[in-house]
């Protein structure tokens, strides 16, 4: 039995401790906002927060999150004024949208760590998140807008 906190709620699961967190979230907790893209931590579609830090859920065995605090994109929804989601909607960022939950998880950590991110900060922080539709111009703008909303 693995116990951890999921979006603020204590949970436990009997799933195999080797099972990647990604599949535990999607299959056992029906949280499908965390996406499967590459399975090797290369594309960032499965980005979640572990104790506040962005990690790739596809490459993280369930056993490694024992006692940890996991936040998924669904966990951000509780805050209806979430600055990242607000900015993403305001700037109409998504095209296919498949990578965007991972993008927003990375951006959330970025604007917390770097309150006024410049292009170089965004490029460094977000380059682990692949967008096949090429929405990067809008991701840059939305990240800055989210940071601005977060500051005020």
């Amino acid at each position, binding site marked *: 039995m693995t116990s951890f906190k999921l979006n603020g709620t204590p949970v436990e699961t009997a799933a195999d401790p080797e099972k990647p967190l990604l599949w535990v979230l999607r299959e056992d907790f029906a949280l499908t906002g965390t996406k499967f893209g590459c399975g090797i931590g290369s594309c960032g579609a499965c980005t979640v927060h572990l104790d506040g830090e962005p990690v790739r859920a596809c490459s993280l065995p369930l056993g490694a999150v024992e006692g940890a605090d996991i936040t998924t994109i669904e966990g951000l929804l509780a805050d209806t004024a979430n600055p990242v989601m607000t900015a993403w*909607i305001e700037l109409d960022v998504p095209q296919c*949208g498949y990578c965007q939950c991972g993008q927003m998880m990375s951006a959330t950590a970025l604007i917390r760590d770097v309150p006024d991110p410049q292009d170089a900060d965004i490029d460094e922080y977000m380059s682990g998140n692949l967008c096949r539709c090429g929405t990067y111009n809008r991701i840059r703008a939305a990240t800055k807008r989210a940071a601005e909303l977060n500051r005020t």
Partner: protein
Amino acid sequence: MTVVSSRRTFLKGAAASLVVPLVVPAAVRATVPADIAENAFLRLDADGLVTCILPTCEMGQGTHTGQAMILAEELGADWRTIRVEMPKQPSDPYRLPFGQMRSVGSYGIRFFHDPMRQAAARLRMILIQAGAEHLGVSATELEARDGAVVHDATGRSVPFGDLVAKASTLTVPKEPVLRPESERTLTGTNVPRLDTPAKVRAEAVYGIDVTLPDMVYGAVRLAPVFGSDVARLDPASVESLPGVLKVVQVPRGAVVVAESWWQAKRAADALDIDFTRTEHDALDQSALDALISEGLGRENVPMTLMRGDPAAALDASDHVIEADYAIPMLAHACLEPINCTASSTLERTELWTGTQGHDWIRMNLERELGITADQLTINTAFLGGGFGRKTWQHEAVQAILASRALGGRPVKVIWSREDDMAFGFYRQIMQARFRGAVDAAGRITAMSVRVAGPQMGAFLVRENNMDPFSLLGLVDTPYGIPNYAVNHAVTPVPIPLSPWRSIAGSFTGYWMESFIDELAHAAGMDPVAFRLANLPADSRAHVVLTRAAEMAKWSTPAPEGVHRGASVVGSYGSFVAQVAEIQIEDDRVRVSKVYAAIDCGRAIHPGQVETQVQGAVIDALGPTLRAKITLDQGATIQSNFTDYELVRINEAPEVQVENIETGAPLGGVGEPGVPPLAGAVCNAVFAATGRRIRSLPLADHGLA
């Protein structure tokens, strides 16, 4: 506004809706009976919601929002009350003719714009007629606005939904009267995309997210060599692994079904399976390249386009430039891996998937499994990218066979990224030999193009070996070349191919615009000035190139260390010119900025045109810099995003886009941004280094 009637509560239910046929143009219907075509429809329900059944899926291109805008504007409705849905039943009356149930060719807006307007106008006309009876005034005094029929003289109005019952008794007018241009105030503005909130809030259901009661998961183990099949399969080798429910043989391999996809995948990897040998087990990339190259010098190849006498003009010139170009195969690498969920018995099959090609699924299932259209339901989910890959869906067969092996239990088959990269449907590998001549005045006097490689669109060839999937971008060049020839030496390849965003344009644009640059250099002219001199002055290509050059301040010198390249290509009814600015740092090309001017006739949603062109530039930049698919021992070498490297945010140029409207008919938007990019970048590389890049990617030349 006074609402005089609200009978919504009495009118709920299936019967309380009003249906207007959406008639697609005759040219589109091709060989199918008109009665089927006319059953695609626009429906108004008593709650005021409008549903339009169209075959265009939402894979990121924003089509549904643009279509809603066109409908809302013509009808006089709030665009947020419009829903575009895909038909579920290939055989029901609510489908487009066979062959049209697909989302390809940048069709979504340009193709359905006129039929949608006409259907919306018909609906508006009967609503106004019903409103006239309802309000007891003349129809000429009424207007359709904001989802209601409005009588401005008295300030009275009645919501569309309340007129459904009355309007249903009226005859739909044959001749729709369209709104005048002055009333088209919604299209051309940037309304928020309809699908954005759901996508941002993780509520959008992609194929891979579909969840059904009692559903289990399938992972595949397929033969690495194309054309190979199962020689020996030992299901017992994995049946005792945790969670494994069944091992099901399918064409080319097996599906392992388990309680969890992770368990299924582990078992699939461990499965004891052998594959049959094929005649291309030893095929490697150099052999494949040589196979294609043979076509460059082949004799007696039928001529597809012949204008003037290019052979004589080239012979007569003392200034002939000759160059061979090549491009490799590419994967589509949609971020959502290939997947399909099926619940199937011999009598009835239901699918849940994100697809660009209803009709291809249907055709394939009938051919491979004998499933007829009336036995099939297809639920279309959001697509996590398409780019042409999701027109072919053999994973449907895998999911169906797996579900049948479990007595109809729903099975979601998901390919791993490695499966997605390895098992094909690639952009075709092609080569070309260009010969061209310029005169002392900088005019192109002659050109011949020999294309070599597979004929991916063979099923579309009608005459003269003209395959649009191989030759568009060459046969329709906007340049005024008096003596010009194009033909195609066809060499089949034993690899499954699929249209890749912009299809032929993805390579013909690169070739032609690089070779034009070579001719400009030979003529000793500025590349933009040379192009403008050889493009008809009134052509759309001339207009967009002029504008892109202005945007990039082409006529003033670039800053120190910055080099520029230009390109202009027409495709899918639109013209796009791009100027790329690059820097070379440690022998690596960095594209810092791209200026793009597009003429797509009319920008229904300028912000979405902008973002589609930006995305197309990024999409095209990956294979310009590094991405390629190559073979070893008959199998694909690349396996994941680590060795099929695409552009990430740290390499993404700022892409500045301008819409130019020249009064041309509507063109496509999703694809036309792709073809100019590689040429613009490689022409900038030439400006920077003097090296002419005649094959992609730049990494092969030590430049990325």
